[in-house]
């Protein structure tokens, strides 16, 4: 099955700042892929590049619309309308002076798709769980709750019948109780429309709740990629292991709190970019030949076609993860 969107060695640099620094990954049709990592790891920059809002410095992003993901007859001639985005803060994303109807119809109007506008707005609203949709048409954002606002944002994306939804921390600003409802809605949309979702989050519980695969990003690079059960169950990369150990609800692991913060993307360390904070490297227990690679050689990028892939010299020296490959 071909990917909905395929990234090959994508870099986005801002002057000397290497926000995204060699990323290869595919989003498959109908999958939920979670992109996790600390602030400043380049997640937002990467999804802005996928959406076409951010030119890439090098590499290639190919978007192949999924056959059948959208009803026949829709206009595919205009760029990447098949890629839609939802943001963290629904309140900030909605114009307070527009009605819910106008907000949801806006994408259609921008693209001058006035045919069946009301029916399409109604369908998008009810798909987002706002039923009966007509009741919401005349309302303003301040008249609905925070959870409903995020549903309106989702309806505004779904009205374009995208095949890829990019979601940047879609529930981080919502209450815990509402969080589950919105995540369930996202899963339903995948089931009902065949949509793919790339969701950016630092909430590993969210990934456990909805993601088929997890990509772990550190300082502009994906360092581990694989099925959710494996990545969250038996992570291989020392960075993934540390992240998982500090999730408050996983008391089963000994906490590995990394010191300091992610380095500035203008000063990516040579060798393995994680080595100054890597607990495994810093422990001094690595064999010399591995440790010397950590400080001199950048582990290769992941093999994005493998089931499970890790960019770490120590993991490479140990052997391959189960039916996967290591990027080294």
């Amino acid at each position: 099955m071909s990917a909905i969107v395929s990234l090959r060695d994508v870099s986005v640099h801002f002057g000397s700042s290497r926000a995204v620094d060699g990323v290869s990954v595919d989003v498959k049709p109908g999958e939920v892929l979670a992109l996790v990592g600390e602030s400043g790891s380049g997640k937002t920059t990467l999804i802005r590049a996928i959406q076409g809002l951010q030119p890439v410095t090098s590499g290639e992003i190919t978007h192949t619309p999924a056959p059948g993901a959208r009803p026949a007859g829709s206009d595919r001639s205009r760029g990447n309308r098949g890629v839609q985005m939802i943001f963290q803060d629904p309140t900030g994303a909605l114009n307070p002076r527009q009605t819910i109807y106008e907000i949801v119809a806006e994408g259609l109007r921008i693209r001058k798709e006035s045919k069946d506008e009301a029916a399409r707005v109604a369908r998008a609203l009810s798909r987002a769980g706002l039923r009966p949709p007509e009741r919401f048409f005349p309302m303003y954002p301040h008249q609905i709750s925070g959870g409903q606002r995020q549903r309106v944002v989702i309806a505004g994306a779904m009205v374009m019948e995208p095949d890829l939804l990019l979601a940047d921390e879609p529930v981080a600003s919502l209450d815990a109780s509402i969080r589950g409802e919105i995540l369930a809605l996202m899963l339903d949309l995948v089931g009902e429309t065949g949509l793919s979702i790339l969701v950016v989050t630092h909430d590993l519980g969210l990934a456990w709740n909805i993601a088929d695969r997890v990509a772990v990003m550190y300082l502009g690079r994906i360092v581990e990629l694989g099925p959710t059960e494996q990545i969250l169950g038996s992570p291989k990369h020392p960075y993934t292991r540390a992240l998982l150990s500090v999730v408050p609800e996983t008391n089963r692991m000994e906490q590995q709190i990394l010191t300091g913060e992610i380095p500035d993307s203008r000063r990516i360390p040579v060798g393995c970019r994680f080595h100054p904070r890597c607990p495994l490297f810093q422990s001094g227990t690595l064999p010399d030949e591995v440790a010397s690679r950590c400080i001199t050689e950048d582990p290769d990028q992941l093999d994005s076609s493998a089931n499970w892939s890790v960019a770490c010299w120590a993991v490479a020296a140990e052997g391959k993860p189960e039916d996967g490959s290591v990027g080294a």
Partner: protein
Amino acid sequence: MSRPVLSVKDLTITYNSSAGPVPAVRGVSFDLAVGESLGLAGESGCGKSTLANSLLRLLPEGTVTSGEVTIDGQDLFALSPGGLRAVRWTTGAIVFQGALHALNPVQTAGRQVCEPMHIHETVASDDEARARSRQLFERVGLSANLLEAYPHQLSGGQRQRVLIAMALACDPQLLIADEPTTALDLMVQAQVLALIAELRKESSLSLIFITHDLSVLTYVADRLAIMYAGRIVEQGPSLDVFQNATHPYTKALAAAFPTIGDPASRRAPSGLAGDPPTPGALPPGCPFHPRCPLAEDRCSTIEPDLRSSGPGREAACVLI
């Protein structure tokens, strides 16, 4: 038993808004022992910050309170302005919600940490304040050269550490932290939580920690109080409450934070339909009944009080 550092009895707080009275806290009671840590959780608008701010009388003018608050043996509502000033910072200190963005942009971090010491005259001189701020920076894990940094030069995690240092400036017995980690990412949150755990180990600091993330509280709090519509609806030892919630609202909140690896929550996010109630227009009876999966007829007429629901535990639900 030693005297509690804080004792709250039947506290009610009603804001006066242009649209009428807003009963934000409606009868809350709890004690906090010396060195104890209480976690307050609940959806946005349930009254957590209102409660926290009231403990140092930091509510807006015109707000009506009733009930009793005893802090370090003193009746909070009877304090003179001077007595109140002495309580703030030196007995109890708050790290406000959103304060991460409220540091003074044109003053160095070091100066801001010195400020409460000067105001409360806990130091005799500028030099002493500077020495103390250096110590505090070390205590919260900040390098001394950041004393000269301005807020915009600091990351979110570093700013949160500055705020904690500032709160500790006058060596309070009680630290109230309102959503101190909400804006931080996973690893920085872990660093701040570890710092708070360490501060508590070093001294007999009592803590009230507010967040909507129940799972965080299992890590920092000895005891957990869950608020809904201005009242505590369940309380008890934190891990016990998180893992074996008895109140239907707590159950829903706890389920919203999946245990990674638990097959029951895999591809099955769990939420709670409906919206939190508005304080001005509470439903009759148990305020949770419009959203409660277990609601019965009587729930729309009776508002249950807290009742014992196990060792050291209480819940307010007709089913208990």
